[in-house]
């Protein structure tokens, strides 16, 4: 009886294996019959054609947008043997091991993908090959960004996430569902160090504060003082890791009846520094002038200069004429002393408004966004990325822009890669793009952050924003960060520098955006 059972089992196994082998063979199309040449490369989505990619990027999966029912591709690197891939669906997914081999053997060269596709009439069309240039310089291994809904006034879920750029692995650093769906934003790292991070929290329960993770020490710092009623925004770590510059803004949102709906106006805006060791907020009139609105601080790589944007204070009715200059001021972090203001780009000259200055790691360039007015460039379709050469003082529009908002950006540690956010696909949802920045100062054709599912972005209803490169995975755990947000032991109230006069005492200001939880009548 038992022997009969074993025999039956073996027969079934053999049949199953045979079926699997036959199915696999049937799935692999064979190029036979008539052939023709398309005379062009195939259309693919996302469009990775002719891009320059880092040698440590995840496989570029895409779909063939062609009228074909099967395809075959010769994939070859600069050196090493070629491989043949097949498929009957439009999706092209290159196996990870194959991709890794291709990248390793092609650094400084090209990867070539030569596709043939079978049309409905059985004719095989040979397309011109797609080439991908592989740079020698790697990109930082991790990218941190925030995922949110396209927020108009109220948000639901949001999370700060980190993506291993060499794979498709993505993990949460902090999810707002762990602290009642409050807002978390403006994450920032000291020199791309995953162990030194700050981010902002806006909460009905605990107020507005800045979570600072500093080499294992985590705290929740309340930076609103008698000088600045508003809490911190757009924070930036000084390279020494002991000072964080931030903007204290009073922001309001309004909506247009025609065209792009959302708009933002800062009714007040000053810069200040949070000195971590002294737990103290300080500032100087040059960066917190009541007649000017200062915002978007950024340190030079040596920490000797603080770059920021500023515009003259105006009433909201004149929102369309508010244009920000790019200025900088010398700062000595050791002595807490300031130099003189220097204007680098004047809105009067450019006719545009400067936002988000980011200095390249070698200190030579400032990558910035310019738009028609205001400082919330992601809401302005006119926003484009510009490059200011600090050696020559000249600025130019980068050829990586689109006709929609191209905004928030970040340099890689070696200065050879730029990541930026763009609405070029549809005008509403922001995605992240990477671009190679060569030693001659040219930015190359950008490509969208690759995803495992080639159709990932097609129906993805979330927004990626604030991309920041980091040198490794964030060391503080999500649980620890949540504790820092929710538990009283982590609370620290920053003191105001006695040298700074109180100016803005009163109840801390609120943000124009709110969580759905904050709607009256909602019980968590």
């Amino acid at each position, binding site marked *: 009886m038992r022997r009969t059972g074993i025999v039956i089992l073996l027969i079934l196994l053999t049949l199953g294996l045979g079926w699997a082998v036959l199915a696999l063979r049937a799935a692999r199309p064979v190029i036979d019959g008539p052939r023709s040449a398309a005379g062009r490369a195939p259309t693919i989505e996302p469009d990775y054609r002719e891009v320059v990619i880092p040698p440590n990027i995840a496989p570029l999966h895409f779909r063939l947008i062609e009228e074909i029912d099967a395809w075959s591709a010769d994939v070859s690197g600069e050196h090493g043997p070629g491989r043949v891939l097949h498929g009957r669906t439009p999706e092209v997914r290159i196996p990870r091991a194959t991709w890794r081999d291709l990248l390793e053997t092609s650094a400084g060269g090209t990867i070539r993908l030569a596709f043939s596709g079978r049309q409905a009439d059985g004719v095989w069309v040979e397309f011109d090959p797609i080439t991908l240039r592989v740079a020698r310089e790697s990109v930082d291994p991790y990218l941190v960004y925030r995922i949110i809904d*396209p927020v108009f006034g109220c948000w639901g879920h949001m999370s700060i996430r980190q993506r291993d750029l060499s794979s498709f692995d993505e993990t949460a650093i902090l999810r707002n*569902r762990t602290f009642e769906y409050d807002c978390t934003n403006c994450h920032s790292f000291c020199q791309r160090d995953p162990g030194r991070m700050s981010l902002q929290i806006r909460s009905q329960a605990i107020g507005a504060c800045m979570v600072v993770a500093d080499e294992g020490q985590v705290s929740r710092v309340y930076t609103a003082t008698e000088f600045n009623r508003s809490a911190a925004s757009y924070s930036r770590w000084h390279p020494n890791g002991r000072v964080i510059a931030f903007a204290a803004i009073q922001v309001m949102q*309004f909506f*247009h*009846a025609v065209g792009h*709906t959302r708009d933002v106006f800062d009714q007040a805006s000053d810069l200040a520094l949070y000195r971590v060791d002294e737990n103290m907020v300080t500032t100087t009139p040059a960066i917190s002038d009541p007649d000017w609105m200062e915002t978007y601080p950024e340190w030079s790589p040596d920490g000797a200069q603080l770059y920021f944007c500023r515009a003259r204070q105006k009433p909201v009715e004149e929102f369309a004429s508010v244009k920000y200059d790019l200025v900088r001021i010398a700062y000595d972090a050791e002595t807490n002393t300031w130099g003189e203001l220097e204007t680098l780009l004047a809105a009067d000259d450019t006719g545009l408004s400067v936002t988000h200055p980011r200095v390249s790691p070698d200190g030579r360039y400032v990558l910035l966004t310019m738009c028609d007015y205001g400082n919330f460039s992601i809401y302005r379709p006119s926003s484009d990325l510009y490059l200011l050469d600090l050696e020559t003082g000249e600025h130019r529009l980068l050829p990586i822009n689109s006709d929609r908002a191209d905004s928030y950006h970040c340099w890689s540690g070696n200065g050879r890669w730029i990541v930026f956010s763009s609405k070029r696909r549809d005008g*509403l949802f922001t995605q992240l793009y990477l671009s190679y920045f060569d030693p001659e100062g040219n930015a190359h054709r950008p490509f969208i952050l690759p995803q495992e599912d080639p159709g990932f972005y097609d129906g993805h209803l979330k927004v990626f924003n604030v991309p920041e490169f980091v040198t490794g995975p964030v060391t503080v755990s999500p649980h620890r960060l949540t504790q820092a947000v929710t538990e009283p032991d982590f609370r620290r109230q920053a003191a105001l520098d006695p040298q700074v006069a109180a100016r803005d005492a009163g109840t801390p200001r609120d943000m124009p955006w709110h969580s*759905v939880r904050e709607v009256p009548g909602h019980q968590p």
Partner: protein
Amino acid sequence: MTTTPDDAIRRGRLCAWPYALLCVAAWLFIWKGIGPAQLYHHQTPVFMTGWNYLATNWASGAGGLIEYAGAGLTQSYHGPWLGALILATLLGAVAFLSNRWLHSATGKPLLFSGFVPAALLLTMLNGRALPIAPILALVLALLAALVFGVVVPKFRWAGPVAMVLLSLLLYPVVAGPYLFFVALAVLHAALRRRFLLAGLGVLLAGVIPYLIGVWWWHCGVYDAWLRNLLFEYDLNPQILSIAIYAFYPLAVALLAVVSVRVRRRTKAPLPLSRRSVVVRTGAVAVFAAGSLLIFRDALATTILRVDRHAREREWEQVLAAAGPLHWSEMDSVAELERLVFLPYLTPRFPRHPQQGVPLRLSYESLLHHVNLALQERGRLLDELFAYPQVLGMSAVRMLPDNIGPYVAHSYNMDILLRLGHVNEAERVACEVLANIGPRPWLLQRLVIIYALKDEPATAEVFLTALARQPGHCDWARRYQRALADDARLSSDPLASRIRPLMHREDFAGSYVGVNPDEEMLLRLLHTNPHNRAAFDFLMAHYLLNLRHDQVVRRLPLLREFGYDRIPRHMEEAVLMHAKLTGEQPDLGPWQISPATIQRFQAFDQAIERMGGLGERDPRPVRDALFPAFADTYWFYCLFGNTFFEVDSAPPPEERRP
């Protein structure tokens, strides 16, 4: 060996026929009585096909998987008999498993007692807010408790092992109902004097959700311990859900008491005859019927029906469904009192799209739909006051959209689209998206909005998301083809009707994001002087806010909006204005109909006969005039502040543009 039903009953075994009967009865009741279409409308959980979405649901935390399964099963509501069958089967499973567990825990038969929680669940379903997921989770928890009950007596060591294993299996799948399982397991252990085992259960109830939910999945406290319990789908004060969960310990206690009494009387087991089976079945049926009757809410059903037709833009059906709330259907003004005391669900932001998003039913939402339906049928200014209106209520926005329940925006979205204020409609639609996720009806509206904004690529993103939802992919594919043929959707009836009404000149919305109705409507009319909807709602706004002077001023504009006579409520406002100010307004080419004049005279004389209003309580006069004049502007004007037996504040002074 044959077993008679009596034998089976005596031995605690359970016959199948009562369960089959229950399933059939529940199936018919759900199919024909409750209506799976109504259930779907009330909940609309998001369900997308594909591994990615399944993985997203799993990653959404403990309980995500059962919600995904529930959302998938909810799609069966599109075929009403199938949806009803699935629900009836689940109720049958609850009854069967409950009985089995009670028998296993107490060792005594308590025939058909499991029908009690099933009947209570059916009553909750009748409220139409209860999704499938919590019922499914309840079934799994009962099943786990039953397995635990079977394993515990076998070996001494089996109890702790089963408790831990079942916890690890059950909690990630169901979340909150895991606590229900633990409660049953602890009860079972305690009944067998296994107090250490019971203690272990209590410990696990704290530790497992913390470790898996909070620490590993990063869930909030609510989600970690309470997600998928019945409470959040029950009307305050949550009597039904409390009764369901409390039933099990109470039934055990009852059995214990009965058992002691029986033991005192006789040592023999209580004989159970066929008659007693019939009596018990009847008792459960009476209990179910009583429960359904007590918790029946005809008003909520009416509002839900109106809401469903309004979402489908079936305007005649909206007005037909709203019939019971027509003045002519009421016996007195006092009946309105019940309208303001609608029982609400505990309003809770639906944390995950796959969760149902029960509507917050209110009389204001019904009025909003009725007024929109009247406008769509060209009857707003003739029949606005045929339904009891709330004094000073916004004519356009049901609720100010920065306060109010999370679905308030969805009500405002359609009317803003109808008016041609597409950017505002976009804003509220995106607020709803952030609030409750990509519900199919919302995605459909977003597609229209972005096509109107000449952003077909954005519309395509929403269409792709919609195409992944079974039951809606046909609509999505149709619009994908239409969008590919014509990015402006010129042949789409809705889009082509709205496009000419859209704003042409930009203005920044008062810098606060929300325009008062009057300013918004005036701006819309400035952009398009033939925007009939904007005119109608502006007049309705003036009427609702007792500003008949403004109505009189706009009489010369009537012809521009296609009117060939003065609408009845405007006639009434003119007469009221003349009476109150003594001025005879210039009617131009128009005339007030003799019928309206005669009616006004009758109204005026009736008040005179009763000695006028003066400072006295207006309610006796109101009640006397109600049968003949309830549907007039005059009635609303003089008595509107008494309609809902609450002291209505006078209409707010609006900002003049």
